[in-house]
């Protein structure tokens, strides 16, 4: 989906363009939120809430401003705030289980290789959760949500150089920690 054309469509008619925005971005936002919060229920709530807030904001923006938005990065600024707030609340109320650290149950439990792949993914997710916040956010936005660096920078409100080195350091740390405790 061409995001600048989508921004133009939204500037033209929010009611028509907005559902397309949700369709285009929901998978990335959900997958990212799931890996940042560790909870499937939280990720679902956050994804929904992020789009509701985005809609409210878009309704108040003049068309020119909407047209110039880097939509993915912009929606992620909202989603990241929600993820962060949720993580803080979770630290204060740690009794609630974090079901999402585990990887999605295989819908059709298949051959052994798949079970193995599932365990491996779970392992990776656990190590990913140990990275400090801005680094983890940068890694998740870049590689799980699939944002280009420029939009990761917008989402995190940090310079693109910082974001690149965060992702780089994040991957190094992740690789190290996976080697130390495979």
């Amino acid at each position, binding site marked *: 989906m061409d995001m600048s054309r989508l921004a133009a469509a939204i500037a033209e008619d929010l*009611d*028509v363009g*907005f*559902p397309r925005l*949700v*369709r285009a971005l*929901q*998978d*990335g*936002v*959900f*997958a990212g939120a*799931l*890996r940042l919060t560790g909870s499937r229920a939280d990720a*679902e709530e956050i*994804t*929904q809430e992020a*789009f*509701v807030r985005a*809609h*409210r904001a878009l309704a108040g923006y003049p068309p020119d401003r909407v047209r110039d938005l880097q939509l993915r990065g912009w929606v992620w600024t909202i989603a990241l705030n929600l993820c962060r707030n949720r993580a803080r609340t979770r630290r204060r109320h740690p009794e609630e289980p974090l079901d999402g650290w585990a*990887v*999605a149950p295989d819908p059709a439990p298949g051959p052994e290789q798949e079970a193995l792949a599932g365990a*491996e*993914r779970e392992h*990776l*997710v656990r190590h*990913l959760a140990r990275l400090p916040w801005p680094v983890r956010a940068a*890694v*998740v936005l870049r*590689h*799980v*949500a*699939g944002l280009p660096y420029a939009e990761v920078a917008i989402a995190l409100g940090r310079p693109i150089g910082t974001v690149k080195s965060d992702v780089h350091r994040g*991957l190094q740390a*992740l*690789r190290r920690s*996976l080697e130390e405790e495979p």
Partner: protein
Amino acid sequence: MNELTARLVALREPAPASILPGVLDRTGLADHFVTRASPLGPLFVAYSRRGVTLVDLALTAEAFTRRYEALLGRPVLPAAEPPARLAAALERALVAGRTGRVPLDLAGVGPFQEAVLRKAAEIPPGEVRPYGWVAREIGHPGSDRAVGNALATNPVPLVVPCHRVVRADGRVGRYSLGTDANKRVLLAAEGLDVEAHERLAARGVRYLGSATTRIYCHPSCRHARRITERHLVEFRDPGAAVRVGYRPCRDCRPQAA
């Protein structure tokens, strides 16, 4: 891409299906549907904030919502009742047969089809007009076939009474909602004597005039139906009526050839 980033990419997964309908509902953008009784059985009527989007017969709500998503590319949620104004307008359209000002959301319908549908919506209940009449009224005389196609893909049947447009030879013609027979059912339910209309047309009669008012009409026009037998004059074409000094009815507008 190295092995680690490939493993991160593998952590992607699709958002749950509940997210889009939830967001649209909370932002007031969700389309909804209600069911209404009709002579053809329960009718599903869907609407957006802008107006009615789709009308269809369906066996189940699931079948309707599936069809809706496939056709319009967005989800539709069940509603207890539409907003009061829309509910009143729907009642007028489906019970009294008068589309009037039912708001319609015809995104994806081109200007020609929209003109056809708006024109069809002007035909009063229990009356019919030929395809050619619609073509002429919307400024495209002769495009009868295009009018037929536009009506065949009417997304809001019954609300826009495309069943009131029939063939010039008097036969009721095709109907897109269910079977062709449904068209007769709907017209009969509105009080049109379909057989009498067809018999008249089979004899070549296309217009009826009144010897007292010297006005000629489409046979199903409410004014034509009031003409007493003694004063009823049959015409095969507008020219014949005009030649003997009749003028066209201002309501059903059978135009002089």
